[in-house]
């Protein structure tokens, strides 16, 4: 088997294992990454929401916010894990697509 094939198998294994990245923080009751809190969380921490932060925080509405489907808030960890895996697959497909487009422009023929 070619090395690149084995490397893609590694990616597939990581996709299957990716719910670990959701379940472990949940299990250990860890919150958001430092500096990635929602304006509401910031409000709880310091007693007010910085005005500029509040205004800019809704600058972009991502189609799959936080790797979860809209309206799935509060669903079971199993459902959220499924959404997490589907997000990973979608993200990788788009990433690979963009890289191949870039490769078309930059890649040298041999």
């Amino acid at each position, binding site marked *: 088997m070619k090395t690149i094939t084995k490397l893609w198998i590694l990616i597939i294994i990581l996709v299957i294992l990716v719910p670990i990245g959701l379940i472990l923080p949940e299990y250990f009751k860890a919150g958001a990454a*430092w500096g990635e809190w929602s304006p509401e969380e910031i409000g709880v921490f310091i007693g*007010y929401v*910085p005005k500029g932060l509040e205004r*800019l925080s809704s600058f972009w509405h991502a189609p799959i916010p936080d790797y979860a489907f809209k309206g799935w808030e509060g669903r079971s960890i199993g459902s959220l894990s499924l959404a997490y895996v589907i997000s*990973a697959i979608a993200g990788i497909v788009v990433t690979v697509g963009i890289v191949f487009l870039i490769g078309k422009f930059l890649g040298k023929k041999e």
Partner: protein
Amino acid sequence: MHIPDGYLSPQTGGVFYLVMLPLWVAASKIVKKTLRARQVPYLAFGASFSFIIMMFNIPIPGGSTGHAVGGTLVAILLGPWAAMIAITVALVVQALLFGDGGITAIGANCFNMAFILPFAGYYIYKIISINSGRSSLRRAIAAAIGAYMGLTIAAFLTGVEFGIQPILHHSTDGNPLYCPYGLNIAVPAMFLEHALLFSWIEAVVTFLVIKYLQKEDPSLISA
């Protein structure tokens, strides 16, 4: 380490776009010269690997989370300029599709994770691995140390970017407008959680993949 929208002022975000612009142009030119068509799948692998490894959030029990980036590993496989392009693609997809990292902060996030991280990691790896064989243990350890340092330095700078916001911008009542935590809190928080935990994960992941490639196909590892 994905700075969201609202934590940096638009001015700070803009400055990092301006800093990244010539770097992206340079990366395109350099990669255009050196990248062969058969290496494009490796570039796609590098971007995908970085994308997925960043989804493995590691908890600090009762506290925050963090993750590896895989940036030094990608730089060792593809060179730092190609790594910059690969990680930029991963970060842009994360921001646009998943709201992981802000749109106004793409310049800053790319500066930290797609520029500083792979370049620092790669050159530290180069220095430590000088005159070592492609399959040597020293080379794998050099990769791990580079990975550790690259992520830690990037985290430190992210802390500085957060921490200067209260100095730069506040409303008339004196309250910060953007990130409310100053250098005295943001820098130690970002630096320590990476230096003590997340960068070790980055080092272990890098070490394991390099060890595997040394056995499997040492020609992939940059000399």
